[in-house]
């Protein structure tokens, strides 16, 4: 299977003044196959949204390569990409559904917009396509005439999803798409994503904090910590047997309704390290890692294969 998306040593550093650089995404490498669903999880602020905005070419990378089916996208300026034919091949559902909708567009206009622009559809065909998309995403048709401020958070999220799948992209990037959804609609959306994957062979990069959802939906999972991928592997194996101490802490913090299941919780102490000019010889997790040994502050662990199909960036994984 040739990769649909091939990311190599991708980096984004923001200038935060006084010659200081914030390493938001640091030399990240991974691939996504056709029809594959890859989950991206990690601490708030670790660089997930920056990474997906680089891939979707809303941000220009500092260095590295982004190839979509063999075509290099990294050299193209973000602005030029808007008019590029590859534009329709990658679509994105944004983290803040509310913010990313034009306040003067009704839900119907918002969904119709990319179809009109990228697929040149209009009139009755456009209208019925919009209605079909509303049905698919579980958005009641009577809400189509409403403006964003008249919709609840979850209703707006559904408009965002309908809009992104409207042009049937090859790669759909979803940045916390289900965060604002209630569990019932979430089920509808997750099943819809799975169905589109089977029918259209769509690939997904799925950013989420809901690890239970990632476990159910994704084939493979990438775990990020402070700009770096610290672990990757098939979803089922990664959840059953996490190799990196951060992944272990993350999985153990999943909320549990059943008090008996809360035993043996890992609570991370210590202060998180700064993403601004981080020390290149210290493990990013050092200081909070329950293990942390002298070697961890003298040598940065690299992402290496620790078992078949599994990688981790820890000296002791």
């Amino acid at each position: 299977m040739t990769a649909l998306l091939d990311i190599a040593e991708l980096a984004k550093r923001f200038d935060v003044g006084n010659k200081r650089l914030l390493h938001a995404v640091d030399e990240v490498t991974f691939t996504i196959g056709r029809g594959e669903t890859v989950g991206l999880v990690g601490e708030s602020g670790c660089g997930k949204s920056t990474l997906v905005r680089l891939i979707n070419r809303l941000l220009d990378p500092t260095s590295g390569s982004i190839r979509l089916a063999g075509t290099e996208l990294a050299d193209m300026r973000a602005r030029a990409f808007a008019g590029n034919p590859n534009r329709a091949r990658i679509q994105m559902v944004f983290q803040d559904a509310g913010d990313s909708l034009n306040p003067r567009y009704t839900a119907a206009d918002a969904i119709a917009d990319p179809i009109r622009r990228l697929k040149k559809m209009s009139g009755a065909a456009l209208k019925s396509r919009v209605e079909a998309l509303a049905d698919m995403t579980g958005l009641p048709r009577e809400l189509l005439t409403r403006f964003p401020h008249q919709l609840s958070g979850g209703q707006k999220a559904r408009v965002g999803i309908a809009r992104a799948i409207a042009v049937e992209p090859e790669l759909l990037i979803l940045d916390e798409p289900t965060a604002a959804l209630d569990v019932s609609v979430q089920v509808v959306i997750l099943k819809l994503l799975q169905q589109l994957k089977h029918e259209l062979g769509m690939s997904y990069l799925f950013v989420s904090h809901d690890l239970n959802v990632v476990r159910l939906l994704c084939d493979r999972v990438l775990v990020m910590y402070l700009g770096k991928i610290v672990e990757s592997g098939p979803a089922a194996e990664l959840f059953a047997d996490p190799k990196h101490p951060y992944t272990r802490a993350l999985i153990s913090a999943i909320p549990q309704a059943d008090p008996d299941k809360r035993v043996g919780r890992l609570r991370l102490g210590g202060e998180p390290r700064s993403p601004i000019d981080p020390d290149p010889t210290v493990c990013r997790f050092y200081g909070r890692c329950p293990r942390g040994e002298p070697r961890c502050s003298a040598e940065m662990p690299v992402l290496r294969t620790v078992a078949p199909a599994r990688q981790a960036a820890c000296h002791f994984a």
Partner: protein
Amino acid sequence: MTAVPALAVEDLSVEFRTRSGIVKVLDHVGFSVDKGETVALVGESGSGKSVTAFAVMGILDPAGKVTSGRALFGGADLLALSERDLAEQRGRELSMIFQNPRTALNPIRKVGQQIADVLVRHGGATRSDAPRAAVEMLKRVRIPDPERRVEAYPFELSGGMCQRIMIAIALACRPALLIADEPTTGLDVTTQAVIMDLIGELAHESGMATIFITHDLALAAEYCDRIVVMHAGHVVEAAPARELFAHPRHPYSAKLLAATPGETVSLAELASIPGGLPDLRRPDLPACRYSGRCERRIDDCTKPLPHRVVDERHVVSCWNPL
């Protein structure tokens, strides 16, 4: 726990005027929160959770109107207070964390200054102490490198960081009542645990009462004392968190639980709730707004809803509960 609740919402009804008619968004909503207690408000999208919060805070959209009810807080009815008295209480006694954190922050002011402003305005710190207090707040919500990050503008922070800034602002003045509208949706579970512990500490130390709006039932069960379930503008069930999880009585609560991905092994096992919320513009809304979707419906269900007490802390509005 005191006998008088910190907040008692009684009989609250809210309508919205829209181009296509009046939408009856809340219908006789009632629940209470004790001092030091955290009560989760759960329910489908559009069930009226945010509108309930806005009504209590006195910040409803101009198209919305409170048509009945009271919100008793510290002896006064918040719904009857003048705009000025309410503004006075907001921020000092009442604090809200909004569902959409980025738009609630001022985009052109450094986040440290925004926290300091709130602290100074409500007497939480002097002008000279405020910057240090702001750094301290960032540290408490686990933002790395707080000394430098106070200098950041909202656009320079991640979604979850903005959310934590909003939490820091809301908690800065140690409010008596916190309304948190999905405050942790943008946070990973380890950071979420830190925030929930922080809310728990304030509840414990200063008796802060919290209304915690969430879609995450496992989160509600782990960190909240009680859960209030809303559906289409009705409170359908209220119970201690653990009890609701173990023995939901309202058919809708049971369905919500069945749609929650927990230990489930595949997507196929999860069931969405059939049907949708009824169109709230209908003049002939049924007494039970869930009846169109309910598998347990009986003849009695057309009568005005009962208020059944399962036990002192567990009530359900249903003619044929589980």
